[in-house]
């Protein structure tokens, strides 16, 4: 066990930043001060995270190389009757990687935001929230037990709520903020229940084996791998209260946080927040917390084949579903939002087929290129004076060359063009899905091939919609002053909201201008006729350049052997090698026997033959290399085809009409409102409150009251006040009741 108290500095530095900005920054109202405090705090976190991860200047080996995690016990939070939850942090290889990219990308986004938020009245408030978010996110990542992770989990939800609703005056912002929080809460319910079940099954909630207060605490995962065996692949296992139930409950939490089906609709709405927030929270860090949770609990998932199947199917379905919507959106941030949902689907697909390391690899590369794309879009929006509708952009490459060039790097990365970061991670996901042959252990149906086909189709769609976005924004002719197409026929609520959002303000521009006097809002005003977009200042472009660099080369840490051997290099997959110890090894005590005749044994060894377990999956065998290379070639061809299709479709007709149902996002919101929210509200109002409370119970009470009062009125001669008459009635009733019960009581004892 390695202890290092520096670890807590990673989380407390941003907390201190938030407090200082809130208390002092609010008084000073000085942008330089607030910006320096906020960025300085994150810089401290970043430096400490790098020190601890790589063992720079620390007495122990870096967390990324060491066998044991670096721990820091701060205090014992709850300890009741054998249940203990410490406020304690732990950095192992998994949380180390997360901490590194969260702090680093976070730092870049903070710097970017000092430029983006320049001139905003709530500058200090924004950075206080942003730092608070970093505190919560790093707590989530570095927590050494499920409950503290849940603290961070809820904390990021709160900060997300505050930051989405940052523009207080925007109606859609406050609606989106609430929606995000509530949908996250639905997921949180799953996490809470999972924690109860984990505690019941294992007697612990700790991630790591450790000694606290002289007490040996066993890790949940050690317990699971040593004392439990895999659940069978049945639907019943979901409800059996075993590991599969845990895994499914955790995944409910993951769908909330990471915007997967069915809890996906909050994330696109969350784009109502400032763009750096979208980049930081709703693309690079918070939304990947669900993936982190699944990978962290991989020991549990590997014993829960049904849950793995659900994760993979939901992931693939979400990826495709969101991609189809992304292709029809006109708001640049909405495109990126749906793209994020889609990419998160890829990550869950990877985790679901047992390629946990690859899922994290994609989390990291995605953090680079999606943060880049979001910040790029922020730069565009900044340069366009808060216009977000791509139908009014065009030819921006002429005015914003740096933004264009950097965003192009992100575009190539997400499309999966070789050497750019996205290629390696996405291709690896596709290949591992294709190779997960034993995926449906109960039938011969080649389910993994279906998932692979879905994912591949999604990859093509990704290339198409990203190309569309790039064309609409950077190529073609300038459409800065063109009126938007008439959309009055879209009468349903969500589309109207969407429409209003596209305009940047709720009720048209006149009102916006009327309110402009006391406006601290990021919204679009009618552009002056001689308007020319401008390139953003260096605080914004420098982070873009750094992220563009990372999006280009960031994938090189995880080149699979099949690729590196092409150019004669050996095993260079540092990423896989680093994270491998984090993945629980099932097969190890049992050997890697081929599926045996005995059914029970087969279940137990199910994952021994799945790719999650090294040994069964040998990246060096010639046929694997052969297959992997072929598939990689295929996906490169398809990515290029996607880009080609994108150019063919949109190069000359960037405003091509897209299918309406896609533009309306398959009407998921309407479905939820119509079939869940509205019925529940009217049931509560008409049925429970007015019907039961006011009608039934109070009816009885008032009925008795007035009946007795009638009696009283008859009996009463003297004029008494209302209260006194009631009091008299009460006394009368009381005496009767009391008399009866005293009689009964006496009978009882006498």
């Amino acid at each position, binding site marked *: 066990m390695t202890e290092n108290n520096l670890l807590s500095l990673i989380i407390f530095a941003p907390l201190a930043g938030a407090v200082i900005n809130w208390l002092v920054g609010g008084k000073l109202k000085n942008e330089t001060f607030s910006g320096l405090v906020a960025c300085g705090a994150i810089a401290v976190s970043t430096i400490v995270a790098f020190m601890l991860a790589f063992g720079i200047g620390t007495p122990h080996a870096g967390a990324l190389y060491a066998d044991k995690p670096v721990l820091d016990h701060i*205090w*014992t*939070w*709850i*300890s*009741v*009757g054998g*249940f203990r939850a410490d406020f304690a942090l732990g950095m192992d290889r998994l949380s180390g990687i997360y901490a590194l990219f969260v702090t680093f990308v976070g730092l870049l986004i903070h710097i970017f935001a000092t430029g983006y938020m320049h001139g905003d009245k709530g500058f200090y408030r924004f950075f206080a929230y942003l730092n608070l978010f970093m505190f919560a996110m790093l707590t989530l990542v570095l927590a050494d037990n499920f*409950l503290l992770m849940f*603290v961070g989990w*809820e*904390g990021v939800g*709160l900060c997300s*709520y505050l930051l989405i609703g940052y523009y*207080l*005056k925007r*109606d859609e*912002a*406050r*609606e989106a*903020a*609430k929606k995000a929080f*509530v949908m996250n*809460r*639905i997921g*949180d*319910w799953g996490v*809470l*229940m999972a924690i*109860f079940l984990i*505690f*019941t099954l294992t007697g612990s909630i700790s991630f790591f084996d450790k000694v606290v207060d002289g007490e040996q605490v066993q890790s949940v995962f050690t317990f699971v791998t040593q004392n439990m065996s895999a659940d069978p692949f049945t639907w019943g296992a979901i409800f059996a*209260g075993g590991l599969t139930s845990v895994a499914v409950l955790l995944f409910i939490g993951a769908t909330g946080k990471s915007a997967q089906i069915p809890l996906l609709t909050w994330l696109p709405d969350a784009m109502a927040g400032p763009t750096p927030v979208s980049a930081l929270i709703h693309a690079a860090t918070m939304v990947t917390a669900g993936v982190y949770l699944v990978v962290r609990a991989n020991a549990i998932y590997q014993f829960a084949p049904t849950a793995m199947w659900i994760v993979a199917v939901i992931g693939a379905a979400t990826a495709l579903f969101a991609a189809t919507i992304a292709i029809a959106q006109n708001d640049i941030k909405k495109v990126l939002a749906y793209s994020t949902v889609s990419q998160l689907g890829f990550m869950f697909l990877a985790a679901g087929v047992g390629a946990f390391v690859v899922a994290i690899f994609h989390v990291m590369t995605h953090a680079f290129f999606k943060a880049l794309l979001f910040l790029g879009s922020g730069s565009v929006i900044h340069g366009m004076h808060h216009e977000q509708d791509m139908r009014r952009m065009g030819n921006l490459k002429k005015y914003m060359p740096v933004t264009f060039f950097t965003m192009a790097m992100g575009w190539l990365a997400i499309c999966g063009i070789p050497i750019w970061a996205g290629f390696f991670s996405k291709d690896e996901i596709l290949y591992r899905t294709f190779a997960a042959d034993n995926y449906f252990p109960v039938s011969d149906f080649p389910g993994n091939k279906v998932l692979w086909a879905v994912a591949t189709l999604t990859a093509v769609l990704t290339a198409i919609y990203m190309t569309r976005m790039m064309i609409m924004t950077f190529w073609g002719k300038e459409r800065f002053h063109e009126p938007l197409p008439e959309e009055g026929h879209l009468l349903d609520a969500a589309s109207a909201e969407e429409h209003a959002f596209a305009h940047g303000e709720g009720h048209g521009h006149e009102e916006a201008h009327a309110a402009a006097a*006391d406006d601290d809002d990021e919204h679009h005003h009618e552009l002056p006729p001689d308007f020319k977009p401008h390139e953003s200042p260096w605080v914004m472009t420098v982070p873009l350049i750094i992220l563009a660099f990372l999006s280009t080369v960031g994938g090189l840490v995880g080149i699979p052997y099949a690729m590196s051997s092409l150019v004669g290099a050996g095993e260079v997959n540092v990423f896989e090698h680093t994270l491998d110890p984090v993945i629980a090894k099932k097969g190890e005590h049992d050997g890697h026997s081929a599926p045996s005749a005995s059914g029970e044994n087969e279940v137990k060894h199910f994952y021994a033959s799945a790719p999650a377990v090294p040994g069964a999956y040998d990246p060096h065998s010639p046929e694997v290399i052969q297959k992997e290379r072929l598939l990689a070639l295929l996906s490169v061809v398809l990515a290029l085809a996607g880009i080609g299709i994108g150019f063919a479709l949109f190069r000359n007709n960037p405003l091509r009409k897209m299918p309406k149902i896609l533009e309306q996002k398959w009407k998921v919101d309407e479905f939820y409102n119509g079939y869940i929210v509205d019925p*529940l*509200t009217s049931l*509560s*109002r008409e049925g*429970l*409150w007015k019907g039961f*409370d*006011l009608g039934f*119970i*109070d009816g009885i*009470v008032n009925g008795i*009251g007035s009946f007795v009062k009638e009696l009283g009125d008859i009996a009463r001669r003297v004029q008494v006040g209302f*209260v006194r008459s*009631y009091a008299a009635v*009460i006394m009368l*009733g*009381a005496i009767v*009741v*009391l008399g009866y*019960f*005293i009689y*009964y*009581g006496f009978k*009882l*004892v*006498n």
Partner: protein
Amino acid sequence: MNGGGPRSPSYIMDLIAENILTILILLPVVGALAVLGHQIFWKQESQLKWVTFAITLLNFLLSLVLVFDKGAVSASGFHFEKNVPWISAINTNYHVGVDGLSLWLVILTTFIMPIAVISTWHAVEKKATAFYIFLLLLESAMIGVFVSLDLLVFYLFFEASLIPMFFLIGVWGGKDRIYAAVKFFIFTAIGSLLMLVAIIALYFMHADATGVGTFDFVTLLNTLKLGNMTFSASAGAFLFLAFALAFSIKVPLFPFHTWLPDAHTEAPTAGSVILAAVLLKMGTYGLMRFNFTLFPDQAREFAPLFIVLAIIGIVYGALVAMVQPDVKRLVAYSSVAHMGFVILGMFSFTEWGMQGAVYQMLNHGVSTGALFLLVGFIYERRHTRMISDFGGLANVMPIYATIFVITAMSSVGLPFLNGFVGEFLIMVGMWKSTILSVTATANWNYIATMVAGTGVIFAAVYLLWMIQRVFFGKVTNDKNRGLADLSYREIGLMVPLLFLMVFMGVYPRPFLEATHSSVTEIQKRVMQRAGGEIDHAHVPGPSEEKTEAHLEIQQK
């Protein structure tokens, strides 16, 4: 140092420490007399609040003695115990004492009182003398409830707390105050009358079993523990339900909850705060103190009923809160949901659940008390509480909005704020409970927890929806444009509450450790089924047979 003279400061300190509970009860009464006297002789109504505030603050400071000086523990496990004969004819004693269960509730009472007094600084326009007298009398009664160890004395305090609250609502309340006050009175009085019957029955049954009738809780408990007194099935059920009904109405448990929204909505702010923070706890406290220890078998038998009602209350309260047009009524319904959690935790009969329940009583007192204060602030400014009258308040009252959001988050159960720890422990307790059956097809403990857990989701829905409509967006109503943000008095009022929300959320250990031994004691008592001394009482021994036979003969 030790053994100072009779007049030395340490002697006085010892004297105070020794009689601290009596002092805590009597000081507000003396204060009430002082207020009356002050008004008679000086006729300066504006100074009364200062007098009242000083008394309540002094009482709070004195009550801290309970925390820092635990005093001698009596054999029965109570601290600062005093047992003085009162009416010897019916063998009733002035018997008071405090243990882990009541300790924090007493502190909560003394803590919330000064805050409630300051909250009325400008709010009481008529009959201020009577108002402050009632407040002080209420404090006495509430403290009396939590420290009484004699059932008759407990009952008297329990009823006595009713009267000041009745008048606080009925005289200083809102538009429908008479209806609300009477409803409050009818509901709670009917429940407590039944309890009185049960108390009297217990007296006679004890006389029957041992030859001496008693109201003394500790004596009764000992007799029961030794198996010298047992209840027949019907008598036990009657006694348990009589107590339980009184307490359930007070909590209030679904479906006895409809008095609460009316009482809260009509009560003046200070009344609502005290009602939510302390009065409701008398119900949950009573269940745990008396029902669980005196009637453990019946408690187990009826537990499924209470668990079901608690869960209905959690979901029902939340759903109804969601559609309330009035902020105060919304908070009142949220109380129904939160108190449902407390009941749920208690009836899980696990250490986690019961510790969580006790902790949640305090949390609810702090957070919901704070919410009512906040609603009071805005009501004083706008004389309306309808959600539709507001909108965009965060733009005009940023400090108010911030504090409101933090308080709401504590009520929602956000981790690292107090509500989370209590709710979490309660749900762990229910999850691990053995009180509901585990059948081949379903584990009802899990299902109960899962349904109760949805309350956590709904809490976010109703509070955030309300916050969204009240605070965010543009200022839509011109009357809200010129609203002043919180004054220093109002901020000062909230700061201790906010501090507690955070402190109790991140460092619950001192609270939980103080309640640990008392709560586990009760938990062991209520779960003692087979084995142990209580078990012998269940195997029909000679004494029990005799009693049963005796009872049967008598009933014929």
